[in-house]
């Protein structure tokens, strides 16, 4: 099979430009997107302004009390809206932060490690009849710069920062964009639909998106 030459994006902005071009067409070549995302070498200077680690860790070196909001979960920070074809965002995971088991609402999901490590656990869809513990398929630790891909036909997953000392940051591309998904209780397979919200958009904090945000996926 002929491989098109992968142009190495030298910055996040360049990666975004290339992604816009790729997504001009209506069909997506999963491998092509994965390759181009992996080819970008994460440079914190590129994405620091989106990475809202708004929690206790003194990541920025100066923790003014008014800036500190303790959070138990990761933040979703929108970077680019992909002309409506995709959403590109950066997720910031504090120490010990993890997601629920969730699906991807019939969309493609690409996840690239920008900093630190994340553990991905894959699960089978629960049987609507069975009420037992969900079945785990596999687990892996994703290293910096690696890109993982998932969609609903592959299964469900949980993503966690297992480190108690380091934060993690990941770049996510979802196509087409989606605003809600299902979360699953591992013990019972019980599912629940949740709305997804952004902690910030294009580097600006967006605290009033919804009155009661339910889940940051």
């Amino acid at each position: 099979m002929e491989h098109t030459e992968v142009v190495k994006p030298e910055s996040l902005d360049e990666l975004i430009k290339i992604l816009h071009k790729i997504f001009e067409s209506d069909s997506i070549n999963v491998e092509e997107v994965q390759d181009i995302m992996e080819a970008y070498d994460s440079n914190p200077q590129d994405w620091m302004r989106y990475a809202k680690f708004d929690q206790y860790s003194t990541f920025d070196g100066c923790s003014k009390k008014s800036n500190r909001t303790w959070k138990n979960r990761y933040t979703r920070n929108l970077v680019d809206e992909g002309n409506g074809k995709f959403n590109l965002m950066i997720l910031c995971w504090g120490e010990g932060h993890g997601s629920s088991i969730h699906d991807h609402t019939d969309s493609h999901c690409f996840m690239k490690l920008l900093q630190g490590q994340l553990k991905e656990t894959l699960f089978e869809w629960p049987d609507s009849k069975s009420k037992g513990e969900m079945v785990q398929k596999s687990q892996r630790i994703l290293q910096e710069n690696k890109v993982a891909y998932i969609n609903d036909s592959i299964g469900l997953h949980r993503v966690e920062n297992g480190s108690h000392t380091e934060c993690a940051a990941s770049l996510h591309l979802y196509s087409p964009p989606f605003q809600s998904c299902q979360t699953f209780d591992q013990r019972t397979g019980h599912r629940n639909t949740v709305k997804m919200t952004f902690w910030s958009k294009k580097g600006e904090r967006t605290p009033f998106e919804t009155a009661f945000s339910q889940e940051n996926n």
Partner: protein
Amino acid sequence: MEIHEGAAVASDSVLDFSRLSLTTFNLNSVSDERKRDTKQLYLNYNRLGSLPSSVSLFCNLEFLDISNNGLSAICEGITRLTRLKTLIAKNNRLDEFSLPKEFGSLQLEVLNFSGNRFEEIPLQCMKLLRLQSLSFGGNRLKSIPDEIENLTSLELLYLGGNLITAIPPEVANLPYLSYLVLCDNRIQSVPPQLTRLHSLRSLSLHNNLLTYLPREILCLVHLQELSLRGNPLVVRFVKEMTYDPPSLLELAGRTVKSRNIPYYPYDLPSNLMRYLDLASKCPNPKCAGVYFDSCVRQIKFVDFCGKYRLPLMHYLCSPECTSPCSSNPQSDAESEEESSVPAYRLQRVLLG
């Protein structure tokens, strides 16, 4: 003004000596003026085996990061940094014998010792009365000292990734505690006293050994986030099968209490007075009974925000004493009625 080769100066008060593979920190290259002006000093990601005492010459230092070195001790000189507010010392080789004697005299607000080798939290740390944020994540702690209650300014306590088996009720005496992380430990139960943590917004208990939670957890009014995954939480309704029948003393005590028989100190020996005062009310609202020592543990499920079923434990005076809605123990629709928790509490339960 001479600056060590490779050091970056972001602004006048920040000195960045991080990631330089330094094996020693030679302060001679830093002018006296610069030492006085520096408020933030980064020494992380080097190969320092020890921190020179001369670091105290940075007399106005407010922030010091010595993470990711090979430090096995912290020098006594650090205690002379009277303005130091933040100390980050992650990923070193520190243990409870590594801290200088007068460490507790520092005016620290943020202290991070995660990724070290502490088997207990040193008592010097319990003297840091201005401490707002404390992290001992990823160490080898077996317990939390009772003296934790001395840290009355504490808002964040990160103890994830240790070997902790129990939470002392003294944790509940921290009036401003908002963020409590106890994930990845070996905790089997949560003390009901935690209900006093009125400021608690976030409680992380995932990956422990919990089979149930105390029903008092419903009283944490401001709790927004609770993680419980990876605990052997009881899924089906469980009724405790063992029940020791009450003693004669207990039966007599129950009768006195439930029939409101008056008693006075001149009627009874003091030990019986004390015994009668210990009576606990049966939580079943339809039961006027009391119990002393003999009670049945019962696990009830509570529907949190229509999402999950969490086993909560409460005591009843006898196995016959059940709450109104437990007629069908296997029913999934079972929910707690006696303490009606509004659905807007516990907004995001990271159980899944």
